[in-house]
């Protein structure tokens, strides 16, 4: 299949349908509307259901119904809409219903703006609904990853019977890049726990209600076991040029892309720098952060928010290494200069100047 140039938002829908998704219930919002529009075009042709709901509240509860009936299903929205969906997401986590929710983050709080931000991290990664639960979260940084990680999201949702978020900033959805898809579509398959109006599924029950104290505690402990299992098995991250990195930049989504360019630039001038790009945000790639901390002396977290993922980096490091934070908000993007300024200061403080000069020479030799 040839690579095609397409928006990340369109890649999500195509990938979802190839992954066996046959239901999309949504509500329009910039910058996620193309996802609903593509779903409206393709899903009915693919024998699936597309419905524009009366609100995000209704949409997520329709997913609750669709998932109960055993079909792979998804929705997409952005910050304000995700806030409204939190009720249903909590219910789905409680009732152990798989679904995929794409959040194309825009500026907040409130109506904020429609420009790209990364300020939904807390409400998505930390769980914005009531109760003790988690959602699994993948964070694409390219149109190709919008496709790949959407397919992964459906697998994870079924594997853990839990809602999975595809968390991307508005840029990743609007950007066009070449995307390659798998040759074959995955066949929709009904899970045995579904309530599908058949003899075999008649005794099944979908509920998040556990009225007894011990009963609910046991249920939440069961959920916790799943989350521990996911934390062991599903951490994903890209580490780039970190082998000998003394300074590690950390960023996801669009910021991950920018930091790659910054790292390349800094390396060319001899700074011993590397990039850690978390691909799963829950479970957070704690193991990789700890591994890099064995060598790295400082971490620089860059976000398009007031500092949300930075808390997870700090938790992973548990005080073992200092963490610096660089950010822009409102739709502004951290520039190379913003990041390099901090990195150069740190390098000077750390006495990396000598090291830097030597490395610059080495790099030049290597290029010559």
């Amino acid at each position, binding site marked *: *299949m*040839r*690579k*095609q*140039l397409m928006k990340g938002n369109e890649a999500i829908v195509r990938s979802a*349908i*190839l992954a066996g998704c*046959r*239901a999309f219930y949504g509500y329009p919002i*910039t910058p996620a509307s193309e996802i609903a529009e593509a779903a409206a075009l*393709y899903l*009915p*042709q*693919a*024998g*699936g259901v597309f*419905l524009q709901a*009366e609100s995000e*509240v*209704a*949409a997520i*509860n*329709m997913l*609750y*119904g*669709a998932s*109960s*009936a*055993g*079909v792979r*299903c998804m929705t997409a929205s952005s910050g304000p809409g995700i806030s409204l969906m939190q009720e*249903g997401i909590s*219910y789905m986590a409680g009732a152990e219903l798989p679904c995929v929710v794409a959040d194309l983050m825009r500026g907040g709080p409130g109506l904020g*703006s*429609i420009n790209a931000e990364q300020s939904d991290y807390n409400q998505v990664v930390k769980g914005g609904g009531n109760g003790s639960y988690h959602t699994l979260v993948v964070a694409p940084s390219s149109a190709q990853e919008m496709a790949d990680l959407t397919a992964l999201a459906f697998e994870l949702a079924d594997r853990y019977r839990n809602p999975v978020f595809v968390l991307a900033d508005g840029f990743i959805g609007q*950007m*066009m*890049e*070449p995307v390659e*898809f798998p040759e*074959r*579509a995955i*066949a929709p398959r009904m899970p045995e726990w579904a*309530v*599908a*109006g*058949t003899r075999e*599924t*008649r*005794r*099944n*029950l*979908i*509920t*998040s209600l556990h009225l007894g104290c011990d009963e609910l505690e046991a249920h939440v402990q069961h959920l916790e076991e799943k989350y521990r299992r996911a934390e062991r098995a599903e951490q994903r991250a890209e580490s780039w040029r970190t082998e000998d990195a003394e300074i590690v930049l950390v960023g996801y989504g*669009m910021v991950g*892309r920018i930091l*790659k*360019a910054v790292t390349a630039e800094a390396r060319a001038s001899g700074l011993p720098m590397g990039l850690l790009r978390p691909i799963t945000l829950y479970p957070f790639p704690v193991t990789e952060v700890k591994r890099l901390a064995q060598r790295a002396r400082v971490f620089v977290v860059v976000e398009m928010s007031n500092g949300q993922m930075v808390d997870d980096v700090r938790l992973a490091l548990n005080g073992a290494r200092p963490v610096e934070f660089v950010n822009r908000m409102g739709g502004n993007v951290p*520039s190379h200069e913003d990041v390099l300024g901090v990195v150069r200061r740190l390098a000077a403080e750390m006495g990396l100047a000598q090291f830097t000069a030597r490395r610059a020479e080495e790099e030049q030799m290597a290029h010559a």
Partner: protein
Amino acid sequence: MPSEVLTEFRVVHEKPHSFYATYKRKEELQHQTHYCPGCGHGTIHKMLARAIDELGIQDRTVLISPVGCSVFAYYYFDVGNVQAAHGRASAVATAVKRTRPESVVISYQGDGDLSAIGSAEILHAANRGESIAVIFVNNAIYSMTGGQFAPTTLLGQKSTTTPLGRSAENEGYPLRMSELLATLEAPVYIERVGLGDNKEIAQASRAIRRAVENQVRGLGFSFIEVLSPCPTIWKLSPVDSQRWVREVMEKTYPLGVLRDRTKERQPRVWPEEVALESIPGILGLTDGEALLPKELATAGKPIDLQVRVAGFGGQGVLLLGEVLAEAGLDAGLEVSWLPSYGPEMRSGTSNCHVRLSREAIDSPLVTAPNVLVAMNEPSLKKFDKAVKAGGWVIYNGDVFPEECARADVHVLALPFTQIADELGDARAANMVMLGALLELADALPQASVYAALRRLVKNAKYFALDERALARGRELFRAAAKEVSHAG
């Protein structure tokens, strides 16, 4: 012995099969429900279970339990059960039915659930004509939470949150859901029934069966409102509660059929499953020519084109960038295209970032372009400072603003709009400028550019125009380059 006596009885009226034999919820009294004596739910449950039995649809039935006293309906009904969030039962029912059209989906909701917090969900499920049956149990109060006011509470009726009685000034008037839904086109059947006496109960039973049967026949949205006694919260005896339904509630909520379109409505046709092999084709992933092999792309030479295109909305800024990126992809390069989106799109300016490279593209943001295509003066002034030393500015205008002149940047300034107009359409200015850009970049084979154009411009007339425009742009750049070299 009683057991010997019992064997001589013929069972004429047994518990419906659609109920479980015992109810697990009540550990000691497994033959009892959790409902209070005199509560309408038990009666309505029985009517519904009997209807399911009679229609022979126990296996096919999916019951959606709400939040409210009937939250535990799934302890009683031996059917598929889904418990929903407060007020959302009709949204949940919508998707269960659409996912499994063969199922018979019954949404069972109280008046707090349906007429207050779930008012949007029920209104839109009804308006879409979802093929579900809704049983709406109206007792004019929030019972499970201890007797708070509901939209259905009668004027003057006391509740824990209207301690002096409901007043029209403060809480408005009782909400008549059946009448409200009957204003919509889609519902096929709406009836209000009561449990005020045996005659009413018999009619309620017929109505509930009718609603379920409508769905079995594939007809669409059916809604049965049941005025139901709540002796505990009303603080009346079961008998007085029935009388209150009859003599008080029914004055505000008159019984009767408000909609019956069962005769004229046709069964709904559901989408069929699509063969798996045809999915990639449906998604448009199998069409289009194969790409040129990578080695055919201009060999050897390093390519790192970082382009910013900017202009007014409607000048084809985004398309210019898209053709460039698509051509790059066709030629086997790594590409990215990032638009400015949102309010800018609407207030009249537009710009995009395009990168073409042999290497994987790190950041798709072009903050320091090596080519700026400025389709108007504001765009030039916004981005000219950012252009890399040694880069190019292609500017739509014959006079290049003096304040933008830089010694370290090449400029091609021409009235591209006018040139395009002479070619037949001023709107092709973007393609003339792209032609110039392609000529200066000298990175893409002509075949790739045409392949890209073919994918993006389907209309034959515009394709021909754009082809001419691209050629003209190339010529103009060559002529200008010659002049520059002569001058040099």
